[in-house]
């Protein structure tokens, strides 16, 4: 292992979500500064990002793998979830923060994922790449759990 980076490449299938969560949580636990609450935040956020990636692959029938990279820094853990389908997804068109308390919002069973990632992670960025979409999630050891 070099530079504290851990990489995982998974088939784009929901059965692998629990594996991803387990690996990310175990990696995060290597940082003694990250409390259980923050690890739980990260576990959920990564699960959301990976779920979206699996859906993107399923929608386009891709059999490529999804990659998850955990970068352990001194005071932070950064996880990047990258799909490998060109879906034409434009992060610029994403309306966020999506108001969860908007009237009628709960009529829709979906759409909780991205807002949850935004509140659970200290930083969340979505980048559109030539060969897919990357979601970057950062959790800092020093910050208290976000409200």
């Amino acid at each position, binding site marked *: 292992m070099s530079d504290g980076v851990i990489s995982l490449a998974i*088939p784009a299938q929901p059965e692998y979500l629990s594996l991803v969560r387990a690996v990310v949580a175990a990696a995060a636990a290597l940082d003694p500064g990250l409390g259980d609450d923050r690890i739980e935040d990260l576990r959920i956020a990564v699960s959301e990002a990976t779920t979206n990636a699996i859906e993107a692959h399923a929608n386009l029938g891709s059999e490529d793998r999804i990659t998850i990279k955990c970068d352990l820094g001194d005071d932070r853990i950064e996880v990047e979830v990258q799909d490998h389908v060109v879906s034409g997804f434009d992060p610029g068109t994403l309306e966020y923060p999506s108001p969860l308390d908007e009237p009628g919002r709960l009529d829709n069973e979906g759409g909780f994922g991205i807002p949850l990632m935004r509140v659970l992670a200290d930083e969340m960025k979505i980048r559109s790449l030539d060969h897919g979409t990357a979601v970057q999630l950062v959790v800092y050891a020093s910050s208290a759990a976000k409200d």
Partner: protein
Amino acid sequence: MTGTVRHDALRSAPVTLLVEVAAWGGWTVLRVHGEVDMATGPQLRKAVVDQIGGGRNHLIVDLADVSFIDSTGLGVLIGGLKRARSQGGDLKVAGIDDRLERIFELTGLGDVLAVIDLDAPQHAEVSGLP
């Protein structure tokens, strides 16, 4: 590529949710064990749909033994609530710890999903319905 791990060997690992069904003062309790995500959410959805299809539309989903739930699982709860209410019933949740309570707050689910304490004495508000 240092550190890249491939886990094909786990491909066939069972990803199942155990849902126990019990009666509770006129309500039907679905006690869920496991993790509720995209892999297992359909199992919970089916359990809810099966109960409502069988005429049991006053449901309590007990999450005390759920070690993880994400937006897919939350969506299943919302779908179950809508389905139950469309049949004249209701859906409540139980077994909510601090961690789940926070997620419910963050998503606004706490405003629409009533939480009940299954250990409390069964009072009229909950048990008197059907």
